[in-house]
């Protein structure tokens, strides 16, 4: 019973289809923009279907939940940090000392933690940004389509490698490999402060230099993946416009892909920076701790906010000492917030071009 109907339909609609073709051709030729006939609906009282209501509730709930969650985390950090900050015997923001072993005499300042965290992250970013840009451009513009896909998977896979594995790799593989190079840098460029001999044994490789390179590898996938998405969305007609003007491949990239993807690339990098700032386990394993103050050298050791807190976690038995670390965590929280805000404003500044 059903079959004849199905069989009939294409045959039946085929003829009117051809007839429509006759009617359509002259219409298209007379008016370049044919007016689209729209039957205006008579306005009715707004009726919300239950499915709509449920979905809106779920979506709104999720949105509210994340805001509340972030607010709660911030509030927790502030509430836990305030008592210890009050007990701090030295200036929290400008001191380099960190001694919380005696809860009755807390002496902690975050200056060194802040500097080490920022320097490791910036080094990682400086290394990762150009490489990620190169990979993203290769994948979207140069690689043959059947190669681009598997290659992109490999890069994404890098993000799935556990942080602890990167840490071990940095400590046991990269550190020793870098040692001759580090030594050479110290010998030849040691007169520049950032290449000066540091406060830890460079032979062990537990330097900011090693940590920065490892973190660079870790943030490479996120920057690459986001940049790739953005570059891939460059409007075809802009690319063709450039090609038709006689642009070479590189000129096409320069005149269309890069201007279009610039904001996305910058925000991708800021996302990477956010990751780098908070990276914990790998940095903790790699960086040699030291009691000496940070001396602005890449070959110094030390600790970042995250690695310092993680190292001290077993000793959080006194709320006053723990509060000192939570205060450090609060600074990290604020720092990542600021970085993200800067990224947003950069992206917003380029909106007109998207």
């Amino acid at each position, binding site marked *: 019973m059903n079959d004849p109907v199905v069989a009939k339909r294409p045959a039946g609609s085929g003829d009117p289809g051809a007839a429509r073709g006759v009617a359509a051709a002259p219409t298209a030729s007379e008016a370049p923009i044919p007016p689209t006939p729209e039957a205006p609906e008579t306005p009715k009282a707004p009726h919300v279907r239950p499915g709509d209501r449920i979905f809106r509730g779920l979506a709104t709930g999720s949105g509210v939940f994340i805001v509340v969650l972030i607010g709660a985390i911030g509030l927790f950090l502030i509430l836990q940090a305030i008592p210890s900050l009050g007990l701090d015997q030295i200036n929290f923001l400008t001191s380099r000392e960190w001694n919380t072993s005696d809860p009755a005499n807390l002496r902690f300042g975050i200056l060194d933690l802040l500097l080490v965290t920022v320097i490791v992250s910036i080094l990682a970013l400086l290394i990762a940004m150009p490489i990620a840009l190169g990979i993203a451009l290769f994948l979207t513009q140069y690689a043959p389509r059947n190669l681009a896909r598997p290659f992109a998977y490999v890069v994404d896979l890098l993000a799935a490698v556990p942080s602890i594995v990167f840490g071990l790799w940095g400590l046991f593989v990269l550190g020793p490999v870098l040692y001759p190079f580090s030594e050479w840098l110290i010998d030849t460029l040691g007169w520049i402060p950032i290449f000066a001999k540091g406060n830890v044994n460079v032979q062990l490789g537990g330097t900011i230099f090693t940590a920065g390179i490892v973190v660079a590898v870790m943030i490479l996938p996120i920057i690459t993946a986001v940049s790739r998405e953005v570059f891939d969305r460059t409007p075809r007609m802009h690319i063709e416009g450039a090609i038709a*003007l006689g642009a070479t491949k590189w000129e096409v990239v320069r005149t269309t892909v890069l201007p279009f993807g610039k904001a996305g690339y910058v925000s991708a990098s800021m996302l990477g920076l956010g990751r780098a700032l908070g990276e914990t386990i790998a940095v903790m394993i790699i960086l040699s701790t030291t009691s000496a103050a940070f001396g602005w050298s890449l070959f110094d050791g030390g600790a970042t906010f995250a690695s310092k807190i993680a190292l001290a976690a077993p000793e959080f038995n006194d709320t006053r000492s723990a509060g000192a670390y939570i205060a450090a965590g609060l600074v990290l929280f604020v720092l990542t917030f600021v970085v993200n805000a800067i990224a947003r404003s950069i992206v917003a500044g380029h909106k007109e071009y998207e």
Partner: protein
Amino acid sequence: MAKRLDIKDLNLFYGKFHAVENVSLAVPPKNVTAFIGPSGCGKSTVLRSLNRMHEVAPGARVEGKVLLDGEDIYASTVDPVEVRRTIGMVFQRPNPFPTMSIRDNVVAGLRLAGVKDKKKLDEVAERSLRGANLWNEVKDRLDKPGGGLSGGQQQRLCIARAIAVQPDVLLMDEPCSALDPISTLAIEDLITELKKEYTIVIVTHNMQQAARVSDQTAFFNLLGVGQPGQLIEVDDTEKIFSNPGQKATEDYISGRFG
């Protein structure tokens, strides 16, 4: 300037799909040639093969010859980038570079060709914008982004960009299909003026437009879905629209298609 094009036994492919079959056609200089035909008949594909844009699509392939004043643009020694610098193109949708100012858009082609002299660039920008009948509308905002103009102005900006490099041939792929009738009229007037200096090939779905602006018209058709498109006939526009040689052409232009 204003060279002639001779298309000889052109076959175009997308991968295994044979898109256009055995097209041979002469485009005289300082003359407007219109390509008409139903959707999917390959007229845009042929147009894109005339400045080697066809091969930009993955898997696209070209067989046959396209002679620009006797020189085959598909010869193995010819750099496609050079071909595109001498054969300009205007697209269906206006596509000014959104990050560039109006002036930079116009001189983008010259910059790519290595011209750096600012005075020269400014001169060319003015001359090209005047040539595209856009100068008076934009002369006070040359430094503003090209994306801020209306659709018709953007399309004229793209024409200015294409003629700024003084191409030998100007290809237009349905340049008015995204424009309103007034902007369309402006572009058609412009085509008539540009004809004095340039060889123009235009693809259009609008038969009145073909009749208004072109000197010769080529009608493309396809015999069925999956079959390659073919050139049915090419002749003086007047003849095609009054007394076409082929039944299919007559059916198409009179609206009795199929």
